[in-house]
């Protein structure tokens, strides 16, 4: 479980996060949603330690990440996996080498064991056959799946995904969503996904945090969204006329 308490983050004079407090639960796909510029990416970067919060606490199963020493943070990060918006695969390494990389760095397994583990992870994301290709030779969706395989290779307790569906077609997005959801349940991870994708919100959102202009505006599950009276949330989720009409029709039929 990850608890965020009264988190503030400023860049010079501009305050981006304004006292966010929330809980991301174990074994669930936790979603952070919000408009562009609302502070989602800044929040996730604070959670993984790529940015230092101005004030507030981030507790990983009770351990205060903000006030940890540098060495403790390094150890803590080994319990995390992250999937970046751009996949962030290492260009000079093959798909297999990318997935093996965390194992090469931190595990005491033999080469054969590391290879087997990496192949198991690639199998889990349906990428057997692509192991000898370089990231530049595979599609965006495949790159995201490699990033997922790399992130889970060390069995992380916490998985962070920064807009995993960006730049993907709706069908591939669903594949990635299903994969993230099933992996979360399989490995009992705390997964936090930063997304704009409404299909993800309605499909896999077990705990949704809506950020609006740097503060937490709403938190709930996907089934609550339809009946929510929060105007800012409904304006964001049902932004298009088509979605507004669909919502109206569903509510009318209930």
């Amino acid at each position, binding site marked *: 479980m990850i608890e965020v308490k009264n988190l503030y983050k400023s860049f010079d004079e501009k305050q981006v996060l304004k006292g966010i407090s929330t809980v991301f639960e174990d074994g669930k796909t936790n979603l952070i949603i919000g408009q562009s510029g609302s502070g989602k990416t800044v929040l996730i970067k604070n959670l993984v*330690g*790529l940015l230092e919060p101005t004030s507030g606490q981030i507790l990983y199963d009770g351990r205060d990440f903000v006030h940890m020493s540098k060495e403790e943070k*390094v150890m803590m990060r080994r319990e995390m996996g992250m999937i*970046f918006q751009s996949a*962030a695969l*290492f260009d000079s390494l093959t798909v297999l080498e990318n997935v093996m990389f965390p194992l090469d*760095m*931190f595990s005491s397994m033999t080469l054969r064991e590391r290879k087997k583990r990496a192949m198991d992870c690639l199998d889990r994301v349906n990428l057997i056959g692509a192991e000898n290709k370089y990231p530049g030779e595979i599609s965006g969706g495949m790159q995201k799946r490699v990033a997922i395989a790399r992130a889970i290779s060390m069995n992380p307790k916490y998985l*962070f995904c920064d807009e995993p569906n960006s730049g993907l077609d709706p069908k591939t997005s669903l594949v990635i969503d299903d994969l993230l959801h099933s992996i979360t349940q399989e490995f009992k991870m705390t997964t936090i996904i930063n997304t704009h994708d409404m299909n993800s919100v309605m499909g896999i959102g077990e705990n949704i945090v809506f950020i609006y202009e740097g503060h937490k505006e709403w938190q709930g599950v996907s089934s609550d969204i339809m009946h929510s009276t929060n105007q800012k949330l409904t304006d964001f989720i049902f932004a298009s006329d088509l979605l507004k009409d669909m919502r109206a029709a569903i509510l009318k039929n209930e």
Partner: protein
Amino acid sequence: MHPTTNIESMIIHSYLTTFGRYLMLMGRTFSVPERFRMFWKQYVKEMEQLGVNSIGIVLLISFFIGAVICIQMKLNIESPWMPRWVAGFTTREIMLLEFSSSIMCLILAGKVGSNIASELGTMRVTQQIDALDIMGINSASYLILPKILGMLTIMPFLVIFSSAMGIGGAYGTAFIGHIMTPDDLTLGLQHDFIPWFLWMSIIKSQFFAFIISSVPAYYGYTVEGGSVNVGKASTDAVVSSSMLILFSDVFLTQLLS
């Protein structure tokens, strides 16, 4: 405060800030590698990429510069009062004392420096460095230390190859161009040889190797933004490392002579 003084203090502040950040990055870079096996792999790869792959251009340039120096010396300082071995002697001294260490490093600052800055800059903007940090890896040490040590290791070989090829170029002018006799050239090359000059050349090149690898690494590693900034970092890296090589050459030459 006078406006000019204000601008000067801002420039000084900016330079000091950059220098401070560079030192902090070097502090992170020079730490014990997390996995020696991975470090060794990177170290060998960097030696090949930065050093071995530069041998061709070093040999080519050195050969022609050696030949040209020999021709210029022969044609311009020839006099009945000068011994016939002078052209060979001056060619050796120029190649050994300046070209193979300093000028060759200036050339490498362009080739290797832009390579390092653009590689690390691209890794930064595509979040590959962030990915390393998230994994709990000291990205500065993992990426930069093998480059610096690889360059320091390979540089003495490049200096020796460059000097040897320059002398080869001089022999080319003697055998093919018949500018002078090979015996006169050999006499000049062997005349009053001071072994310390070879060491001096290698010592200087070690300082320059550090500049060529660490300064572009700083510019590349600290890139912010997109591809335009990567290009700018690459240019800044080459300009800064070239300037530093030229400045430090003056001090090192004075110190070691």
